């Protein structure tokens, strides 16, 4: 109110410039409205089939489960309670929900190891590509990108065929005389991790490459001039320069690994479940929609924390370099 009163007398003192300003403001408003209208169809589709439904998930996590799937419209925190705890049917004793905790733990553990392995393999690979000459660089990059854009299910299926008991990995190991009988790789945690590494490795290589491509090798030379060993140069010069790429790649591998559904289902064989499978089960055999909803929000919360960590780090490094 006070602002409006103060602005009014000022406007009557200098009419010409105020009209111009008002016209400009009106044009700005028109332009803004036009731009919003142009974006509207995309926003509406996303609201209807991506973002809006997420709100419903939050609501469902606070409802009572229906007898045959679905929900009853009655407020309840049972779902959230059973994410973490189980109540004994007879004695009402509350204990930690072991099944959920072990699956949650496995998801975090496997995603973490996948990320570390992806870094171990992806870092040298990205470095190799970044140090090729311009022409062959494009080809190597293309070779990394192709698997990334091919169907995830097909790639998982390909891994399955390679590591099954009669697959080539076991055949080669047997041929070399390293093992007598096939070792069971398929349907183990290790198989799930291998599969995740296989499908998400390009997501590590690409951001790493993007930051390595811009390395100023005069800095590396300076390092050698100061009697650094190769390891020191890698550790003290190259690694700090590409740290944003390392963080971006790690987040890009960790997040989809955590929410993986297809890979653990195919390579884990129904026993080595991850969070994604646990969520899906609540809508299938489990028939506990509110629990499924609560677990989905848990997963999303972990992802958001990882993303926030990334954004915070990215802005920190930018500030330091800028």
């Amino acid at each position, binding site marked *: 109110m006070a602002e409006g009163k103060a602005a009014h007398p000022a406007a009557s003192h200098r009419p010409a410039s105020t009209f111009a300003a008002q016209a400009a403001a009106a044009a700005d408003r028109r*332009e803004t409205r*036009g*731009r*919003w209208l*142009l*974006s509207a169809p*995309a*926003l509406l*589709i*996303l609201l209807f*089939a*991506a*973002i809006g*439904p*997420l709100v*419903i*998930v939050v609501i469902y996590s606070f409802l009572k489960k229906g007898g045959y799937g679905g929900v009853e419209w009655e407020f309840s925190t049972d779902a959230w309670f059973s994410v973490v705890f189980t109540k004994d049917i007879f004695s009402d004793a509350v204990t930690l929900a072991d099944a959920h905790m072990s699956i949650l733990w496995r998801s975090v553990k496997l995603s973490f190891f996948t990320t570390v392995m992806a870094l171990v*393999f*992806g870092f*040298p*690979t990205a470095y190799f*590509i970044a*140090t090729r000459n311009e022409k062959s660089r*494009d080809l190597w990059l*293309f070779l990394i990108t192709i*698997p990334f*854009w*091919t*169907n*995830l*299910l*097909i*790639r998982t*299926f*390909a891994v399955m*065929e*390679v590591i099954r008991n*009669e*697959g*080539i990995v076991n055949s080669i190991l047997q041929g070399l005389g390293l093992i007598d009988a096939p070792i069971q790789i398929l349907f183990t945690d290790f198989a799930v991790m291998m599969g995740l590494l296989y499908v998400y*490795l*390009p997501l590590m290589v690409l951001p790493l490459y993007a930051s390595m491509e811009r390395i100023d*090798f005069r800095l590396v*030379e300076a390092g*050698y001039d100061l009697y650094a060993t*190769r390891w020191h140069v890698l550790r003290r010069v190259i690694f700090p320069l590409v740290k944003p790429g390392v963080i971006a790649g790690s987040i890009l591998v960790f*997040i*989809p690994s955590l929410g993986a*559904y*297809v890979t653990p289902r195919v390579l884990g064989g129904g026993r080595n479940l991850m*969070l*994604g499978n646990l*969520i*899906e089960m609540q*809508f299938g055999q489990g028939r506990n929609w509110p629990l*499924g*909803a609560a677990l*989905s929000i848990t*997963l999303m919360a972990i992802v*958001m924390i990882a993303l926030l960590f990334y954004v915070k780090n990215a802005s920190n490094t930018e500030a330091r370099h800028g």
Partner: protein
Amino acid sequence: MAEAAPVKPTTPKKWGRGFDVRKQTGFTTIAMICFLMLYAPILTLVAYSFNAGTSVAIWEGFSWRWYESAWANVQVQDASIRSLTIAAFAAVVSTVVATMAALATTRTKPFPGLTFIYAFINQPLMVPEIVTGVALLIFFAAIKVATGYTGLGYLLIAHTAFCIPFAYLPIRARLENMDLSLERAAADLYATPFKTFRHVTLPLLWPGILAGGMLAFVISLDDVVITELVKSGGQDTLPTYMLGQLRRIVTPEMNAISSVFLAISIVMVTIFFLLNRKKT
């Protein structure tokens, strides 16, 4: 000659003329292992699609039989047509709305809500697919109960939605590299805004639009998780059909279907790459 050789006791061997500052010991080997790891399973998969026997592990000679049996399989035919229909619809619609949104959100000074629109459009990239899938399952189940409609519409709209960011990003990237001078010139020459768009902006933007559309098409074609959760009975797409088949004993027919799928993806990605390259 021997006397001329300089004595540099303090200089390690690595300072020789052949010294490459870019080299890191073992990195090339690991990179090669990496590429081998990426391609060996895919190549094995393709190789066994030509197996004459019924095993995906024991080679019994070359044959096209599994391609023929996949081609004749009615379920595969249905699923393929459904996949292509959904992908084509999702690609076209998402590309059109993404182009509009990209035009609205680039080459402008910040306006109220710009950041909001960015966040909104990129949102599907940040939420795990399984969560989006579950959310759609819940929401569409409610609509199904309310309206009784169980058609393909749910899959069409779901695919369109998650394809939008993939179509949006290449188009936006292309727009950001285009300055406004040509459009201003057209306006100076009394072109109407529509004419300017039709004859100046659109031709310049076209490679970006094509790239975005292609990406959206591939993303829709590849989707398993959201489709698996959203589909009603008898609405299998090729990936969900394959996921179902993996529970049974797998024959090389699966390899044959996968190989064709791979070939389509690789062709699309190659075109996408070439389109993006022209820009620079």
